């Protein structure tokens, strides 16, 4: 371990488990003053968990944390503040109807009388020192995302933090706002503060940081000095070596274009471009894998096809078996799903889309079938049969069909969701993160199901997080980067590093080198 006097925080042999899953396994790293450290890793590699232990959100199961050379026990955010550690989370903690100044002083007790003028003056002082642009009297609801982030950073500085952790601070910023943020971070670095930014964007790592620590699957993969490394080396370390997984990949039979997307552009409600001029074709009897860092437009892409997301420009055409073409954009979700397009999206919380937690299996099946039949009463027999079939074939472990879905374990919930979509005999299956958080066995069941659909001639669009799986499962891989298609590769010949580079850089020019 480096005994440098500049070391602000030293994390040693940190281990953190969530149930049987090791989020961090024996991770050691130093954070130095006057330096910006990037924490780089794939999704789920344990970056945020590691930093949450410094911020007092989680408590480590093993290892120790030294702050300024002394062993520290951080049990709550307040403990972290007392040690001068402040973390800016991805999800902002602000009260909308209050002003910036009110939010900043919220919770501070030992300052006697409430003096908003003095607080505003101190805030203005902090802002001019580091180059923030902030009006202390502006209400939060009037602010842009980047201004809210500024409030969060100033809040931390107001509490005299000198160790700052930013969790993916640029995820929601425009390039101009990112530039401004980096300017501020450089000023703080000059002021001898220790700064950690959690990111998975390689170009940002290269631009802002002095050193980069890389995590892979919860383990420490290495520490590099930014100026001595390059994107290729960092990608190699971040992705690691492919884990041997043997997933069946039958050759596509009779592949014909089924969905043709041309020039699709989608803007989110706050005006950010989510998909930018996306064009591709999905064939029947083929799995099209979609790779990309989370938030690169995967969700918007699937939702646009399913009719849930209005598009600004472009077209999505559906080509049926007899070669007739129909435009999907502008149709409502019900019409699209009647045409045989099924969407199964597994969000982070698993229950957010598609299933109702407090309803039982049969009722959840009925969400797809309640329009069947002509009677005024709903037909309960059909969903009951579907539920029985899903439970039987997918080996869903449940006490019974009348158990609320919420009570099932995550893997079983996902089986129910995917099983229901497959039971509707779709001609296009959109699946996102279908194995999110699943153990190996359940994952393979889902892969099998997807392969069966492919063999039935269904066009499968599969959005995945795990590159190894995508490479083994997909016939072709579409790589998204910041809403643009950065490449479409053949799944049989594509290299993992190649996909990884395409995920983080547009156009793939680095991959050609």
């Amino acid at each position, binding site marked *: 371990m480096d005994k440098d006097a500049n070391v602000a925080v030293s994390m040693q042999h940190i281990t953190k488990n*969530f149930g049987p899953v090791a989020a961090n396994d024996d991770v050691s790293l130093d954070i130095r003053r006057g330096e910006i450290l990037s924490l780089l890793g794939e999704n789920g590699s344990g970056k945020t968990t590691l930093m949450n232990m410094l911020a007092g959100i*989680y408590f480590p199961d093993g290892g120790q944390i030294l702050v300024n050379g002394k062993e520290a026990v951080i049990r709550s*955010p*307040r403990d972290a503040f007392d040690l001068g550690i402040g973390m800016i989370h991805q999800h902002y*903690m*602000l*009260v*909308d*109807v*209050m002003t910036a100044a*009110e939010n900043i*002083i*919220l*919770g501070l*007790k030992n*300052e006697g*009388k*409430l003096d908003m003028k003095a607080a505003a003056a101190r805030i203005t002082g902090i802002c001019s020192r580091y180059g923030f642009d902030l009006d202390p009297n502006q*209400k939060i*609801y009037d602010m842009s995302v980047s201004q809210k982030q500024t409030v969060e950073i100033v809040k931390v500085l107001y509490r005299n933090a000198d160790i700052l952790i930013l969790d993916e601070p640029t995820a929601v910023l425009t390039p101009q706002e990112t530039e401004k943020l980096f300017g501020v971070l450089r000023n703080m670095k000059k002021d001898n503060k220790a700064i950690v930014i959690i990111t998975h964007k390689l170009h940002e790592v290269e631009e802002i940081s002095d050193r980069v620590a890389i995590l892979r699957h919860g383990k420490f993969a290495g520490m590099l000095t930014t100026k001595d490394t390059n994107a290729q080396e960092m990608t190699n370390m971040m992705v690691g070596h492919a884990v041997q997984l043997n997933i069946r990949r039958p050759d596509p039979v009779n592949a014909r274009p089924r969905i043709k997307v041309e020039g699709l552009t989608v803007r989110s409600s706050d005006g950010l471009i989510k998909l930018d001029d996306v064009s591709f074709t999905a064939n029947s009897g083929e799995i099209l894998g979609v790779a990309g860092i989370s938030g690169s437009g995967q969700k918007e892409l699937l939702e646009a096809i399913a009719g849930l997301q209005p598009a600004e420009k472009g077209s999505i055409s559906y080509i049926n078996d007899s070669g007739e073409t129909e435009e999907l954009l502008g149709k409502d979700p019900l019409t699209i799903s009647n045409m045989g397009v099924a969407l199964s999206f597994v969000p982070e919380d698993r229950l957010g889309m598609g299933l109702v937690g407090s309803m039982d299996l049969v009722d959840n099946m009925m969400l797809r079938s309640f329009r069947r039949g002509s009677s005024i009463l709903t037909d309960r027999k059909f969903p009951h049969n579907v539920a029985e079939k899903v439970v039987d074939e997918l080996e869903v472990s449940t006490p019974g069909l009348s158990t609320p879905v919420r009570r099932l374990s995550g893997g079983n919930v996902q089986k129910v969701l995917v099983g229901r979509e497959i039971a509707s005999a779709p001609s296009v299956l959109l699946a996102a993160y279908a194995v999110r958080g699943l153990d190996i066995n359940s994952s393979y069941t889902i892969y099998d199901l997807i392969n069966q659909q492919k063999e039935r001639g269904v066009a499968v669009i599969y959005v995945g997080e795990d590159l190894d799986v995508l490479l083994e499962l997909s016939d072709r891989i579409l790589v998204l980067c910041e809403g643009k298609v950065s490449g479409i590769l053949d799944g049989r010949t594509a290299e993992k590093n190649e996909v990884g580079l395409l995920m983080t850089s547009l156009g793939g020019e680095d991959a050609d080198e």
Partner: protein
Amino acid sequence: MFNFVSFIPRAVGQGIPLLFGSTGETLTEKSGNLNLGIPGIMYVGAMSGVIGAFLYEQSLKASGAPMNTAAAIFIPLICSIVGSLLMGLLYCFLTVTLRANQNVTGLAMTTFGVGFGNFFGGSLIKLTGSDVPSVALSSTSARFSKMLPGVDKLGAFGKIFLSYGFLAYTAIVIAFVTAYILAHTRVGLHLRAVGENPATADSAGINVSKYKYLSTCIGSVIAGMGGLYYVMDFTSGVWSNDGFGDRGWLAIALVIFTIWRPNISVFASILFGGLYILYLYIPTGTNLAVKELYKMLPYVVTIVVLIVISMRDKKENQPPASLGLPYFREER
């Protein structure tokens, strides 16, 4: 000619219970607790005071001792405070500690509170053995409604501004003090944060449960004093079952009407009180139906205000963002 000198004191008398109720409910709602038990709590506040005063008057009658002014005021007042406080504590225990649904809990407490008032009211009426279905506590009431000496010589000015018992002025002071605390102190800032976004407040180190308990219990006590004022001052110490009527609901309507600002409530409560009795001052003939339509006015005005506020869509005028929602600290 419309008789303002007689109308305004009556409007104020009608308004003061509403002012107590709305100030208490505003303070409660600012912590994110939607206490629909307020109408019941006002009944309990009134009845607890009546029981205290009744027992004191009975003991005096038995011993033949003269009435002590301080005891005549403090015994009912403290009984009322204890009664409302227990109701507030019960509400907090159910909704904050046990995280029961706030609407259901509140409605149940209103049903309970009204029943509590009427049950003990009925018992006291039986005990007195009086011919009319009411309990009269005139000597206690005389202490509560006593005005400053010499006010009757001041003419219209005295009648409009100075002719009320001390509880009326207390209500106005409490309303202004509450408004000041909410807007200008650190405690108020923290309380508002709890009602708007308890997760943020929690992460800033504010004890969410403590703030919810304190504001709800203090709010209940303030609202209960509205019931006490009604029976001891406004009706001159006469309790009759269901006499308090739907004033508790009107107090909750007033909270919305005043967009959660007790200082506005000082004037709005008098306006509501005036609207409530307007039918007595406007010639409506013998048609009783028209009177009933006039009684509707406070509610109509509240609905109009609600529509105007939602159309203007100003964030500050909206209810606290997490009003009615239980707070779970997220744990993994």
